[in-house]
């Protein structure tokens, strides 16, 4: 399967399901060409609403639509959307309405545009909201199925969907079934567990393969649902392996790694060693995506080094 940006899959899936999901409406804030909501807009102009560069109002208007029975997908860059936090908090989360907040251009993986366009704290603040489901798919098939699910009332409350600008290699097989709230063991192993989410899952798998040459048998778990997180699977991995490495293209403060650490703290003790890897509580910068992943240690070599580091603490 060819590599594909999850934002591209998102736009294509929305356009596909438009006909069978008449309650789905889509809003954008002058970035429909980047979020790929333009694909829906072209097919269903009557159900696409351009709200201009005014994200707070888009969030609130989506809440109003949802209160009248619609399922609105609102799209912009992750940082611009989740920056409208107070409106999301009251109009969407407190109101418990099925607004789908779609933040694209997540992480340093966007590259040259630099820090102000990178969503790097969005997981932390979105998962802090009661009733908010938080999903970050790792490839095309996972994104497709997550969008299909979010287009229905199967997720009755609000949800945040975190997508990438860059293309992602497939990590799931073609018969994959997305299950909300269930982590996916992509590779089994008994020495340590690498838990990854989103665009870095593929690099984590590659790193795990290289670890075998050094005698370390690493399990790789894809945490596509950051909230509600799969606490049972995390506990199981904590009992069956001796070290955890979490990997995310996101600030390590309060992100997926933080969520995993919370599970260990609440359910332990497991006597496990853990290292949260990701953006080390700093802002991003300009550079090519490849350069940035190398500089910030999110490429295969960087993840491999961190896996060895935490394993050495056993």
């Amino acid at each position: 399967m060819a590599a594909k940006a999850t934002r591209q899959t998102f736009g294509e899936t929305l356009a596909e399901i438009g006909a069978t999901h008449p309650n789905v409406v889509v809003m954008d804030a002058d970035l429909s060409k980047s979020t790929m909501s333009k694909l829906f807009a072209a097919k269903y102009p009557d159900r696409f609403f351009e709200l201009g560069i005014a994200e707070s109002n888009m969030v609130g208007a989506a809440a109003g639509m949802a209160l009248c029975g619609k399922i609105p997908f609102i799209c912009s860059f992750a940082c611009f959307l989740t920056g409208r936090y107070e409106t999301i908090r009251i109009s969407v989360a407190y109101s418990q309405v099925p607004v789908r907040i779609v933040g694209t251009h997540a992480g340093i993986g966007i590259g040259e545009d630099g820090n102000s366009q990178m969503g790097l704290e969005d997981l932390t603040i979105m998962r802090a909201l009661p009733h908010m489901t938080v999903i970050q798919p790792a490839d095309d098939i996972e994104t497709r199925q997550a969008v299909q699910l979010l287009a229905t009332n199967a997720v009755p409350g609000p949800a945040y969907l975190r997508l990438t600008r860059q293309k992602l290699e497939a990590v799931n097989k073609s018969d994959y079934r997305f299950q909300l709230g269930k982590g996916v063991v992509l590779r089994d192993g008994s020495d340590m567990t690498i838990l990854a989410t989103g665009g870095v899952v593929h690099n984590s798998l590659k790193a795990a393969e290289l670890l075998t040459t050094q005698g370390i048998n690493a399990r790789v778990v894809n945490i596509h649902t950051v909230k509600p997180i799969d606490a049972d699977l995390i506990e199981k991995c904590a009992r069956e392996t001796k070290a955890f490495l979490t990997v995310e293209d996101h600030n390590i403060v309060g992100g997926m790694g933080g969520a995993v650490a919370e599970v260990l703290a609440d359910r332990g003790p497991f006597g496990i060693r853990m290292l949260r890897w990701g953006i080390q509580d700093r802002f991003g910068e300009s550079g090519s995506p490849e350069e940035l992943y190398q500089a910030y240690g999110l490429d295969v070599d960087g993840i491999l080094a961190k896996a060895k580091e935490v394993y050495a603490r056993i």
Partner: protein
Amino acid sequence: MLEINKMKQLEEKARQIRIDSIQMLTEAGSGHPGGSLSVADLVAALMFDVMKHDPKRPDWEDRDRFVMSKGHCIPAWYSALAQAGYIDRNLLPTLRKLGSPLQGHPDRVLLPCLEASTGSLGQGLSIAVGMALASKMKGNAFRVFCMLGDGEIQEGQVWEAAMAAAKFKLDTLVAIVDHNGLQIDGFVEQVMPLEPLADKWKAFNWHVISIDGHEFGQILPAFERASDTKGKPTVILAKTIKGKGVSFMENLCDWHGVAPNREQEAQALAELGVTKSK
């Protein structure tokens, strides 16, 4: 003659809103009497004359919607809900108490006959815009009314919503500004001036109507003119008196967020024509 009777009935509904608000807030020991009293007549007009709704079918899809964007004034609407039969009057004294569906600021999850959860100022007009868009998708099946505070419209999101409402020509949308001229820290015109207020809304391509927000003879025709206006949303700038109906509360920002004590309650109720009982 009919009109005069209708006005008298609305005045009575508004008087009851003021009485209920004073009693609820006194019982709660906290809350916002000034604004609840200033919106009372507008709220009475909406609930008991202007809006299309049916208390027997609170989830009727094509009902008109009301969004109390200035969420702190929700006691006035709770009273209207009780008078209309949406909620039990016995709930009113539970305002702001632990476990009550009558939260200090509106919570639609706990009280489903509310159309929106608000209280963080500046968000309600956006919600109303979304509702009006949904109405438009159904061939303008219902109207949407949004009560804003004048201090509240200092929030930038209100003007984002104003732009969007004009863009989409949301003529089912009516915003009402409860223009009592006061906010917590003082006079609106000193805290953050809004004037020229009518010109601002006109510049955002809204149909603007300025009225006395305590005169049903002006309130009802304003809503009719809003209904007749096609192709653009309407804002009703309603000049009101904060604390209206209770002499010692009128035009004082100190009564924005302080509940009356029992003595003050008695005096307020006497002024509102409540003869001693219970």
